[in-house]
């Protein structure tokens, strides 16, 4: 495949095998995506005309899209957003050459594996209704005009919700983990979030994973809403930092 070497700084999206044809897509700062190759490896790059770039919303989306597109064809080591080398030559001399063995090994390890992310959120009124119905003390405090009762009510609900979350998230993780090679669970950020995590699974097991997620969604019957995204490049499973 033809590789155009430019003098401009090179924005790097990820690393893949050399025979994966990626070119022409619109990348960060609207530049055309191409590859810089070394041995069996290809870095997916695009030229950056100005080094004084401010990332825009569109650039973040493009980074993910370019990786997603390459990942549709072969294993990819996704880089975090924002990595820029001084030139295409520097991508070879500072990254592909010195890290060749590690990158080849990483690509082999990720071969045939995909990332699926799950986000599960409680439906506020459904889960609170179940808590009220399940705990007579809470039901009794409900609607009281006494401020102390209101604090006690809220505290009891908060504890009941926390207990439930522990139980539900353990069950969800256990069900989905049986199909995963690796699991990465994120710190919770939203009040009604049950779980947010990524699962590294074999491409051939994606359907089975989906079936398990559907079964979970059915079992929780609307008190928990699930969102399953993927197959994605393995963003969560290459989160290391390398000094160049």
């Amino acid at each position: 495949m033809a590789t155009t070497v430019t003098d401009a700084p090179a924005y790097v999206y990820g690393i893949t095998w050399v025979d994966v044809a990626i070119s022409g897509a619109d990348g960060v700062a609207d530049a055309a995506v191409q590859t810089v190759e070394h041995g069996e490896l290809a870095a997916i790059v695009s030229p950056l005309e100005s080094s004084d770039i401010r990332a825009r919303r569109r650039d973040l989306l493009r980074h993910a899209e370019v990786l997603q597109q390459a990942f549709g064809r072969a294993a990819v080591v996704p880089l975090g957003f924002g990595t820029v080398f001084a030139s295409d030559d520097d991508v070879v001399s500072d990254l592909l050459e010195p890290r060749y063995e590690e990158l080849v090994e990483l690509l082999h390890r990720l071969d045939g594996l995909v990332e699926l992310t799950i986000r599960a959120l409680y439906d506020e009124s459904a889960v609170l209704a179940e808590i009220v119905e399940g705990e007579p003390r809470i039901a009794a405090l409900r609607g009281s005009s006494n401020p102390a009762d209101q604090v006690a009510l809220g505290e009891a609900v908060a504890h009941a919700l926390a207990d439930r979350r522990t139980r539900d998230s353990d069950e969800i993780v256990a069900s989905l983990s049986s199909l995963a090679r690796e699991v990465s669970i994120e710190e919770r950020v939203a009040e009604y979030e049950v779980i947010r995590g990524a699962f590294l699974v074999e491409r051939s097991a994606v359907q089975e994973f989906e079936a398990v997620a559907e079964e979970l969604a059915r079992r929780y019957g609307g008190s928990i809403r699930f969102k399953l995204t993927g197959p994605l490049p393995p963003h969560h499973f290459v989160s290391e930092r390398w000094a160049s």
Partner: protein
Amino acid sequence: MAVATQGTASNYLQRAPSPSGLADVVDLILDKGLVIDAYIRIAVIGIELVTIDARIVIASVDTYLRFAEAVNRLDLQQTEKAGIDELRGNGGGGKDKAKGMLEGAKEKVGRSNGDSRD
């Protein structure tokens, strides 16, 4: 694009083949992925990080009152579960009271929002 799963009894699983918005993408590419110390690293400036809005408030009286308010305004009639009639039966007067409290709470929230912006 996100689509609801078809052909199943479940509408509670949303399927998205790829990240469907900025928040999803931010989750994947800002602190995830291989990070290499390179020539330069583009700073992400001026992009409001949607996920920050959702940070959990540490347990406090305010959190408790928020939960209490949410529970008070529940309309259990909608939940089609057994045993609700019993709850509604002894809560005839409580419902109006709860409504009053809810309005009070809303006012309070409105005011404190205004204060914090000033």
